């Protein structure tokens, strides 16, 4: 009986059940335990293959057709295309530098564009501009003032008081400020909106600067902090936030690449957060049916774990957004070199997780835990992933982790 059970487990472990003769023999043996001839026959049939797999095979099960999806990005060991669907948000791609994360991100976004989804990409690398070779209808915002927008204005259909709260939350989180300055800013932005329906960050800066408080008052300290951050922001983004600007709702209907490499780390966090939040509430308010794919290349700054450990601020907005943007049909695709420093939100909310080779044991440990890889052989294998080789894990449709290969793009 033990022999039969071992046979059974080997047949399924090494995907030998697809062979019809193997299955027929197995069924026969299950009905007639004592037929030694048939047991030997099956042993002879599967023996060499099992031996080969044990010696040279991969410890992951070969994935079947269940892993197919609309947005294809890799091939399984059996040559089946691996992909996820529009209604399966989000995706985390982890890998060391040069392993092909950005290329994979571009493959995903290019397909999304060809399938009529709208793509926004936040990137630090200029080579993502090559997406223009897929479609010329992509705006590239490199914050040099050619393309201007105004993040202080609420999305259409959203009450300005609500948006002002979101803006203040994101501002203080990005710039490391505290509650006092937040409430001070809230009051001033609300005052600004009561005077002008279309205020800009310049107006806010001028207003805050024009206030006169006693230098010994706490208000004076809040004012100093606000002026300091606003002037820093305007020094880098002054041209981008000035008149005449494009309504963000126009940008929301186009493919846009935001090249954030020239901004300070605080501004990068601010820009990604404010634009994603804007897009989320905009899509909620207009109940839009189009899908948006938001790619964030090198997302460690934005999803930094440390943001989740600031007791004075609670959960960062981006973490909250990841769990709710699904309702607005926004799929977020995140690339990271140091996944163990990412916040829990992306690990918890990503439907698709892709792990390329990683150099740091902490990262591998974090990703194997995140992907539910417990088998010691599989964990060991994650340390020696080859070029263009990745471990993929879907949350729902095919819950087993499996190996996939990214085809070479020439």
């Amino acid at each position: 009986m033990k022999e039969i059970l071992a046979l059974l487990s080997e047949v399924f472990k090494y995907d030998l059940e697809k062979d019809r003769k193997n299955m027929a023999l197995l069924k026969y043996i299950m009905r007639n335990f004592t037929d030694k001839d048939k047991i030997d026959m099956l042993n002879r049939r599967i023996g060499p293959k099992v031996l080969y797999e044990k010696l040279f095979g991969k410890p992951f099960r070969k994935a079947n057709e269940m892993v197919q999806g609309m947005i294809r990005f890799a091939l399984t060991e059996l040559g089946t295309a691996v992909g996820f669907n529009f209604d399966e948000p989000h995706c985390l791609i982890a890998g060391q530098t040069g392993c092909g994360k950005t290329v994979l991100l571009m493959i995903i976004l290019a397909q999304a564009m060809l399938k009529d989804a709208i793509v926004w990409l936040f990137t630090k690398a200029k080579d993502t501009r090559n997406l223009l070779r897929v479609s010329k209808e992509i705006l590239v915002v490199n914050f040099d003032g050619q393309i201007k927008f105004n993040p202080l204005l609420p999305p259409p259909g959203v009450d300005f008081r609500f948006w002002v709260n979101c803006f203040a939350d994101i501002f203080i989180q990005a710039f490391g400020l505290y509650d006092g300055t937040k409430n001070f800013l809230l009051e001033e932005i609300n005052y600004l909106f009561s005077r002008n329906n279309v205020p800009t960050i310049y107006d806010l800066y001028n207003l805050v600067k024009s206030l006169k408080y006693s230098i010994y008052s706490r208000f004076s300290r809040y004012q100093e902090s606000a002026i300091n951050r606003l002037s820093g922001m305007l020094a880098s983004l002054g041209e981008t936030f000035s008149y005449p600007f494009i309504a963000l709702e126009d940008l929301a209907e186009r493919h846009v690449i935001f090249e954030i490499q020239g901004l300070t780390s605080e501004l990068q966090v601010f820009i990604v957060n404010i634009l994603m939040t804007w897009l989320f509430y905009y899509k909620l308010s207009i109940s839009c049916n189009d899908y948006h794919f938001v790619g964030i290349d090198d997302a460690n700054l934005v999803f930094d774990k440390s943001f989740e450990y600031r007791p004075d601020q609670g959960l960062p907005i981006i973490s909250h957004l990841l769990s709710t943007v699904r309702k607005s049909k926004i799929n977020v695709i995140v690339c990271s070199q140091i996944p163990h420093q990412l916040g829990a939100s992306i690990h918890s909310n990503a439907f698709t997780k892709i792990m390329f080779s990683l150099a740091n044991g902490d990262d591998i440990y974090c990703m194997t835990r995140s992907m539910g890889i417990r088998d010691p052989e599989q964990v060991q294998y994650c340390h020696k992933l080859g070029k263009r080789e990745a471990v993929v894990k879907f949350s729902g449709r095919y819950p087993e982790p499996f190996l996939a290969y990214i085809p070479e793009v020439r």
Partner: protein
Amino acid sequence: MFNNEIADEIIKSNNIRILSSMQLIEPHLVLGEISKDCKTEGTNESALSETEKAMLMEIYNHPYRTVTRHYDNGVAGEKLSAGKGGRLINKLVQKHLIAEHAINLGGRGGGAKLVELKDKGYKAIGMKPKPGIGRGADWEHGFWQYHISERLKDVQGIKKATIEGRLLDKFIDVLVETENEKIAIEIEMTPNHALVNIEKDLSAGCSKVFVGCKDKSVLENINRIVESFPDEMKVAIVVCLVQKIVSEVKKHVGRTYEEKTERNT
């Protein structure tokens, strides 16, 4: 993946191509003009100068005068130059005390600038908001009623030109009374109420109805409505642009006045 990245110049020209089809939002206010005095919240009345207050009072007393007439009339007994007056008006607009309206009066002069007191303006001079003269109609409608009635008052043959004149319990935008007929003037900012207004005026006993239209599209729409009327009604209706209504009424009244004097002699 790709051999070389796309150059900045190509990106810029591509951006320009896409941006050309997008609408840009222009400034509503000059940057940096909003400031707030922390010591006094809301509208700072004490910050208003005497000249500004006097100008607000002038606007309150003569709400439908053009700004040049306000300058001529002067504030605090002093006539204002166009430059000084313009700066004063701009300041009041920026403080949200008044709103500007540009109205085409027709003729060679073209556009005229008028100003309307806003709630904050009324507060600043301590006066209650004046009810508009057009029974709930907008400011521009009220202006035209005032403008037309003023210009028709001194025309020979016209006894009276009354804003919101009442005839058989019907209100007419401007009711013009001559010795032997009653003429209705209706000002239409949109074609929506033209049909009702014309029928109401004719049924109230007006022998002629002049319809002044805000612009050409309103004129075309109302002409289309009038064409559907029977011929005997069409004769009693004149549709024209609001800028031309005074001359049309003058022409009509002049003709009937001459006929009458000829008969008398």
